[in-house]
């Protein structure tokens, strides 16, 4: 099972009732897998006529209270932004997996992390956020799926799982487990037919004066709650670190190898790996910045998450960047070389 198929099966285990998707490389294994497995489970699979249609099918299924998801890769996710904005506005839960590829434009089909801005800034129009998860192993990708559905339902929010071509295509041993679920609020807002009750309305239009402002404050309160409660990140060897390398997803695996190697060579290196890209582990990074270590951010892009790291570090210490765009993947030796450049000779105070 490749990462794409594994995440699909994990979504089924997590109770995904309906899947809608449109073919695009490098995530086609998901659509193919779902077309076989969802009918077997007596659930819904539709190959849509476009990503635009797919995200709106998700919107429809979600409005009726069902667990639903779509998957795509970068250009297709761009097309979905309209629908994601409407989902956010209407406060509908949904899971959207982006198996990122190189851009801009048609770009290529190689792995990339070029959609960080799009995912973490909302991506579509309006004042909103989506929760963004950035797994770095196939096991974590699989574990992300039930979490994504739970977060979506708990906060009535679209959740983006940001993977890339490597995670989607690679294989490694995994355990598919039915994890204990969160306690979730009832979906009493869902459109199920107004039988013996007043009508339910799912909407994102707020025309009367002040109504939309009020709605945005309500969304903001929810986002603040998420920032308070849902940050996930992993840290390693920060105690004595002179250099902290920050990376997420597959780039973080490369960083882990490079940092391990650096430690062996006597360099005091550590790393921070954000798992939730929004909410971003701002506090954790700010704390590490208090120790005045140098920061190196490694991405498969020309520098997107580095801006969030800089915001967190707030000028207390230098934040440097190394990345490769357009399907280029930094190698362990390239990252190691950067670590050495920044630490040898040792930083003087």
């Amino acid at each position, binding site marked *: 099972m490749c990462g794409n198929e594994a995440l699909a099966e994990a979504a089924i285990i997590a109770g995904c009732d*309906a899947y809608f998707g449109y073919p695009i490389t490098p995530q086609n294994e998901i659509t193919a897998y779902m077309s076989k497995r969802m009918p077997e489970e007596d659930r819904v699979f539709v190959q849509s006529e476009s990503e635009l249609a797919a995200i709106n099918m998700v*919107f429809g299924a979600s*409005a009726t209270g069902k667990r639903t998801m779509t998957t795509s890769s970068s250009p297709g996710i761009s097309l979905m932004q309209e629908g994601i904005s409407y989902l956010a506005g209407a406060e509908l839960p949904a899971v959207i997996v982006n198996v990122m590829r190189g851009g801009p434009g048609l770009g290529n089909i190689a792995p990339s992390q070029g959609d960080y801005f799009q995912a973490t800034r909302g991506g579509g129009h309006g004042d909103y956020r989506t929760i963004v998860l950035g797994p770095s192993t196939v096991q974590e990708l699989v574990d992300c799926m039930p979490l994504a559905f739970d977060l979506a339902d708990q906060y009535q929010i679209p959740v983006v799982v940001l993977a890339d071509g490597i995670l989607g295509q690679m294989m490694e041993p995994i355990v598919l487990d039915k994890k204990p679920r969160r306690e979730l609020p009832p979906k009493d807002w869902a459109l199920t*037919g*107004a039988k013996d009750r007043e009508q339910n309305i799912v*909407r*994102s239009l707020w025309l009367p004066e002040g109504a939309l402002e009020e709605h945005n404050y309500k969304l903001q309160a929810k986002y603040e709650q998420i920032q308070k409660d849902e940050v996930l990140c992993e840290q390693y060897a920060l105690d004595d670190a002179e250099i902290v390398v920050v990376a997420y997803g597959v780039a973080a695996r490369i960083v882990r190898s490079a940092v391990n190697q650096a430690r062996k060579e006597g360099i005091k290196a550590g790393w921070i790996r954000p798992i939730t890209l929004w909410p971003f582990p701002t506090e954790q990074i700010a704390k590490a910045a208090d120790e005045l270590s140098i920061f190196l951010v490694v991405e498969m892009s020309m520098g997107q998450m580095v801006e969030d790291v800089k915001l967190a570090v707030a000028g207390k210490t230098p934040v440097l960047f190394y990345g490769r765009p357009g399907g280029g993947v930094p190698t362990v030796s390239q990252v190691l070389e950067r670590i050495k450049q920044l630490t040898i000779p040792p930083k003087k105070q």
Partner: protein
Amino acid sequence: MKTIFERTPTLKDCPTHYCPGCGHGIAHRLIAETIDELGIRGRTIGIAPVGCAVLAYNYLDVDMVEVAHGRAPAVATGMKRANPDKIIFSYQGDGDLAAIGTGEIIHAAHRGEQITVIFINNAVFGMTGGQMAPTTVLGQVTATTQQGREAANEGYPLQVSELLELLPGAIYVERCALSGPAQIRKAKKAVKHAFQLQLDAAQGLSLVELLSPCPTYWRMTPVKAMEWIEKEMTKAFPLGRLKG
């Protein structure tokens, strides 16, 4: 005193935001009556478009969702597939269905989605200020065809019902007009038939196109608008049951 005419329960008792002489109110009533007569309020979900009818849920007392411009057939697909026992209808104008949402309606029909589509054709974009719609007839003056629509520049009026008629997945397509009591009675029958098909789990999409007056942007009195439908609009959009 004997009541001989009353509001059907699914039509809410509230003031309307529609202009005098607008056809939306009539179309809403036909849908509400149908829902009440079929006794399906408790299992019906409606989809409001972007356009003048975006607030349809203020008048129709059923579960409703408001969706992105043109995407109602995709949303309806998601709803119906995930809830085969529910009755799903979309209510869309000509900008919504025949311009920005052409792809969605064609493909929903193409897949034979078991949904009901009420298509309001008033030959103009109402909500945004009376611009040309794909269904604007030749010679018609709008905010964006100030000399009148010309085929050479803006193309011919788009006949969506005739397009959909060709698709095996569309099982019932009928065009009616909201231009007078006799036509409205026909339209009611068509709307009810379209819902009944879904209730009977008929295998495909049903669509009723309603030629509907927009006196404001046609710059006519409501009475003249009704006449204009019959005299002019029906030339480009002939009435009748096209399929099913």
